[in-house]
């Protein structure tokens, strides 16, 4: 494993990119040197910890990085947050609102960064958005068309943590379970604990279903932070070396 002390810096090769579907109008995807790495997983699966460590490591290795995540667009993030607080939007509306947030970041952050040769680390991507909607009964074909705008990443790592463990981590960090992460809007159960387990279980099943289509790497998230990070570094190192 390379460390910052080494002088040798791996220079990634320019590779052709493609969108999942129709893509973004008027955006020509030339061969870009940047790489798009996605880390997926439930709240409490360790995504942000892992991403922070990857940024340290990548920068140490001489790579410029940018981070994106859900609900971080300058266009609609505030409005989306407000709407979510009030819980007043219907499913299709929520779905399209999140898609707007995603598209804004894709066009204004991800694509320009990749063209400039950055490594873009995405704290969740379209898969979480799709899984959330699918669990809520939205049509998969409709979602695939919608997210046909998305760029295919170089790698997607799904941090898999059993729902029972997620509950424990959630309580270790906060004193309460999150309304949305417990899927309370779905009416599985009035009992938040029950609802959380049921919701996270169906999210995992949906991710497995999506994995068949999108082929992401499932990483066992129920290990030490360092063990997980070592696995991620190894895989990302291989991607940067063009293997």
């Amino acid at each position, binding site marked *: 494993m390379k460390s910052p002390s080494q002088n040798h810096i791996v220079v990634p090769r320019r590779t052709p990119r493609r969108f999942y579907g129709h893509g973004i*109008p008027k955006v020509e995807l030339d061969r870009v040197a940047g790489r798009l790495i996605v880390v997926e997983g439930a709240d409490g699966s360790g995504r942000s910890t892992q991403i922070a460590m990857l940024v340290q490591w990548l920068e140490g290795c001489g790579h410029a990085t940018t981070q994106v995540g859900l609900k971080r667009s300058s266009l609609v993030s505030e409005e989306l947050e407000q709407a979510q607080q009030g819980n007043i939007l219907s499913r299709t509306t929520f779905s*399209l609102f999140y898609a707007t947030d995603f598209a804004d970041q894709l066009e*204004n952050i991800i694509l320009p960064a990749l063209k400039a040769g950055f490594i873009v680390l995405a704290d969740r991507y379209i898969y979480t958005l799709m899984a959330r909607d699918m669990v809520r009964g939205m049509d998969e074909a409709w979602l695939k068309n919608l997210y046909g705008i998305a760029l295919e990443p170089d790698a997607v790592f799904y941090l898999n943590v059993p729902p029972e463990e997620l509950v424990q981590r959630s309580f270790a960090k906060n004193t309460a379970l999150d309304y949305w992460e417990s899927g309370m809007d779905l009416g599985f159960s009035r009992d938040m604990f029950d609802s959380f387990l049921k919701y996270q279980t169906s999210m995992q099943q949906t991710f497995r279903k999506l994995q068949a289509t999108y082929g992401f790497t499932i990483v066992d998230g129920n290990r030490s932070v360092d063990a997980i990070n070592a696995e991620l570094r190894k895989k990302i190192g291989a991607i940067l070396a063009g293997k």
Partner: protein
Amino acid sequence: MKTFAQLNFPGRLIAVEGLDGSGKSTQIYLLKRWLELQGLKVYFSEWNSSELVKAATSKGKKRELLTATTFSLIHATDFADRYERHLVPLLRAGYLVLCDRYIFTAFARDVVRGCPPEWVRGLYNFAGLPDLTFFFKADLGVSLQRILDGRPQLKYFEAGMDMRLSTDPYESFRIFQGRMLEQYLAMSTEFDFLVIDANQLVEKQQAIVRELIAQKIDLTEFRRAEPPSSRPKSPPTRTVGALARTVKLEEAVE
């Protein structure tokens, strides 16, 4: 995609489409008054009017943050909000729902802005088709004149300036509207538009609209169970300002 009648909704949706300045808003207003005065259950909905999404839309437009894709998605979000919260429940409740612009506006506009047609149509395929769609077809020159006479200041997005068609807003607006018209005409047969000659006088157009609706929809089914009040309600006074508003650009960005 099916119409609300085909989807077995008790309500019916009537949409008007046309270029800015085609007079469609005046026509749908007069249609609404006619239906209301008969004591029917009527609801009116405008494009781009959902309170929730409005803030984000106007911010995006003001700061010129929108691309073809986000422009399309944010309008789809607005439509979905109105559709799920107002249109569908009212159609379930047996209302005559009148829409000033419907999904065809997005089909035309987003495609002119460069979005793939199949993608845009896919976005909106959760929506039912109108039971009747009136298309107000004015000569391009006539509608341009109506707009340009009334409002010399064209806004960035309504003039299609984001598409870099021309550095002159008026020229850009003309090209943009011309392309919109092409898109509308190409959809006309596919979606059974009832094409109204919008170069005619207001009254003449309204007479045709009312006749067509009376022919195609059994209006007696849409009576309110009880009159809303024993006294006849006087129609709201329409100020000169309100009239002027109907002929200005309907997608004005506030």
